[in-house]
Structure formats: structure tokens, C-alpha cells
């Protein structure tokens, strides 16, 4: 088993990173792919950035 772990050590580092972020995302409600129709308006509290696929407009 130790030999297997030794041979796969590069991959296991990669696995730790992915599983770590997966766990963090699962607990903090982060979706890797938000729906593409979502436009985030961050125009609040003097912040004027807009993020998303559509230009934000407020009806």
C-alpha cells in the first residue's frame, strides 16, 4: 500500500486540492457553474462593478 501511495504521490496532491475545494464549496454553497442566465449587480454601497453574462439593467 505504501508503494502504491508513493507511486501516486503527485496525483494524491492533486486529489487533496480538488477534494479540499469540493468540500469547501459544498459547505459554503459555491456552485462551480452558476446558471449562465444570472447577472450579478454589485452596484450597491458605492460599488459599481457588474458581473455576469448580461448587462444589468434595473426595471
Amino acid at each position: 500500500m505504501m508503494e502504491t501511495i508513493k507511486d501516486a504521490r503527485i496525483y494524491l496532491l492533486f486529489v487533496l486540492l480538488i477534494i479540499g475545494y469540493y468540500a469547501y464549496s459544498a459547505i459554503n454553497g459555491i456552485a462551480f457553474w452558476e446558471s449562465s442566465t444570472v447577472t450579478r449587480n454589485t452596484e450597491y454601497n458605492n460599488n459599481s462593478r457588474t458581473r455576469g453574462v448580461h448587462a444589468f439593467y434595473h426595471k
Partner: protein
Amino acid sequence: MATINLKAFPYAEDVACPKCKHQITLYDPEGSEYCVCTSCNSFIHFTKNDIALIQKQAAPISQQPVLKLGSVGMFKGFQFKVIGYVEKKEQSAPYAWREYILYNYEQGYANFAEYDGHWTFVAGKEFYPALGELKNRGWTFINYEENEYTLFSKYTAVTTALIGEFDWDILFERPKTTEFVAPPQILYIEHVPNQTAAQFYLGEYTEPVEIADAFKTDIKLFPERVGIGSNQPSVHAQRWFAIYKLLPFIVVFMAVIGFGASYISPQYEVLDSYHNTERDTAKANEFKPYLTPSFELQKQSALNFKIIAPVDNNWLEATVVLVNEKNNQSWEVTESIEYYHGYEDGENWSEGSQEADVLLSAIPAGKYHLNIYPAAGEPTISTPPGAAYNSTNPYVLNTDSITVKSAGPTVHINVTANPIIWKNFWVSVLLLCLYPLYTWWRMRTYEKKRWMNSDYSPYETDE
């Protein structure tokens, strides 16, 4: 026969070459029946009466041996003395290799075979007793000690030059050899014509530095490695098989983390809103916007909106704005719902759906409501002239333009916090598979290169 079952190497003896009288040192004088004069290259046979007869003139060696005759080294737990050096080639091909005959006073002979800088330690049943149980069945594979060895090559070996001492007539023998590989191991079957049983030998790929260390030789003298050896171990294969073993456990571990996270942050409904849309008569296809009741998120969460509208041969578009009531931060989503069906050419058909899903990521904790701006197409259902609008009949007749307008469909919006995000799981699994796929590809490329030297390659030769 080599002298065996001793507790130490026998004393070396010098004998005079019957042709040139040069003194030849024999390291196993009792066991060696043949030797080569290092001065005149006579291949000498010692008869039963210890009379030295010149049997043939051997060709001079073309390369100086890396391991000197008489040098001693501890290798694989055995003490070996180099007593011979042989240059060989395939009878019908130009491939040539070198063998260093090793003598151990307990077990007998073994050898190092070197081809293009690739070294293999080869020994027979004296070192590996299980080899004695193998039979040559002429198959393309052999199972030996949990490994499957695949046929790699067949050839007849010819000795072209040699120095040192031997216990058999190596210069004249033409063994038909078959090689089976399971890197780093290799199995040789040697069948000498006119001898009944084939002999099995097991080889193991050996790094030159191990040999140099064992025999106290300068590593710089060793020939440079060229290409891939027939039994050279592949680091890519080692990585691939290690990953292949671990991958199922890793995927299960991920599933456990996913279920654990859904236990820590369980999914719950934050809003379930039904609203009968009311047409804005001033604008074509638009309805009056409306607000939903407020809801609160206790912690940062993903939100899943399920928008359901019972449209029938019609469409609905809803712009849904999630608004944080504390700071007006907002997320806007525009989703179209279309559902059409009919009967055509004797078949029922339908397209679209009456619902749509939207996933929002990492919505901070806070109090929220939704602003909804619906729009929809003209309904295809008409109502009798003069019919009044009410909750059971949401259709009204505009008598001026003789067109039918409706109150529009009911919009049902269900919002769930902490939904199980399967896309995260599958994306992670996909990412976890990228490196194994790369390793598998490297292993395959490596193996294809290895098998290019074989007539029995399992890979397509035109690739």
C-alpha cells in the same frame, strides 16, 4: 558443471595456453571446462584428464567489458565473481548484445545481459526454483508467480566473441530463444537443438548504478542507454496502476464528503410562491411586475430557483431579481419557458417544458425578496364574446380590436437553499480523472515505443 555448495570462492589457478603459452587465470578451475586465451583468443577445452585442447579460434571481442574478469560484487544477496564476457547477436538480424557470466560459489551461474545500455540480471532455476515447474507450451503468454508474461521476441542466439571461462561449449551452441516480458521481469526459454528440455531463465531489469555500486565500477564506463528496453519498467505504468487502485476509494470519499456536507448544511425551502399574473394592457405581451414575501438566509448558501408556469402552446419569460433588503445587492435571472404540442401526420408531438431551473452560487446570508417581471405570448384559447374576467375564467375579450387577451398563466416559484449540487460532484470527478487519463496515455505511448522492437506487438503497427 560450475563448482557449487562451497562456503567461499575456490582459489584461482593459472593454466598455460597450449598455443601461445600465455598464462590464463581460472576462477573456478574445477568447474570450468572451457576458457579463452586472452592473448591469442584460442577457445580451449579441458578434457577429463585436464588436457587443454584448442577447439577453435575465437574472434576477438569488439568492446572492452565494463566489468573486469575476476571482479567481485554482492548483488541480490549473493556474492558473484565475473568469470566470463560474451558478445552475442541474433543469427538472422544485426541485433547484438553482451553477457557477463557471474559465478556464485553456492548456486552457480547467473549473468548480466546488456543491450543498448539496458541491463538485465538473468538467472535460472538454481536461483529461482519455481522456474523448474514451467513447461514450454508454445503459447503467446506464460503465467509465472502472479505475473503474465507476453511473447516479445523469438530468435536464435549466436556467440560472436568471448573471453573468460565457461562450463559448457558456448561458442558452438545456437540456442533458440523466446522472450516473454512483464516489465521489469523477462522470461527466457532457451532450447538448444538436440537437447530434450527447454531451459527457463528469469531476468530482472537492473539499473546500471546498482551494478556499478555492487562491483565497485565507475558508472561513467557504462554504455549510454538507447531507446526503451524490452523489460524496462515504465514509471507511467507504475503511476497508472497505483492511481487505478486508488481512484474508486477517492470517488467514494468524495461522495462521503458530499453527503457529510449536505448533513452539515441541509437543503431547505425558503420560498414557495404562486402568483396569477395580470396583463399590463399598456404593453404588448407584458404583465404587471410583483414582489414575493421576504425570506431569510442564515448563512451563505447556493439557491436553486424552480420556475413553473403551466403554459400550453405558449411561452412565458420571467425576469426574477433577487434583492438583498439590507444593501440592495441583487441577482437578476431571465428565464424563458416554452411548451408546445400538437398532432401532426398521425403522431403526437411536443417540445419545450413548463418549468426551468436556475442555480445561484454563494448568496450571502441576509434577508431577501424577489422582484418578478413576467411576460408571455398571446393565449391560443379564445373565450366567447362578452365573457367576464374572473379567477376561474382568466380570459377577457377586447371587443375593440377583436383580439383575445388573457390574465396570463400562474407563475410558481420555488426557492431552495443548500441544494445538492450534482454538477459540483461530477465536475470534481471529471477533474480527478484528468491526471489518470494523462498517465494512461503516457503509459500507452511508452508501451507502444517498447513494442516497436517486437514482431508480436499488441498495438497497431501503423499508428
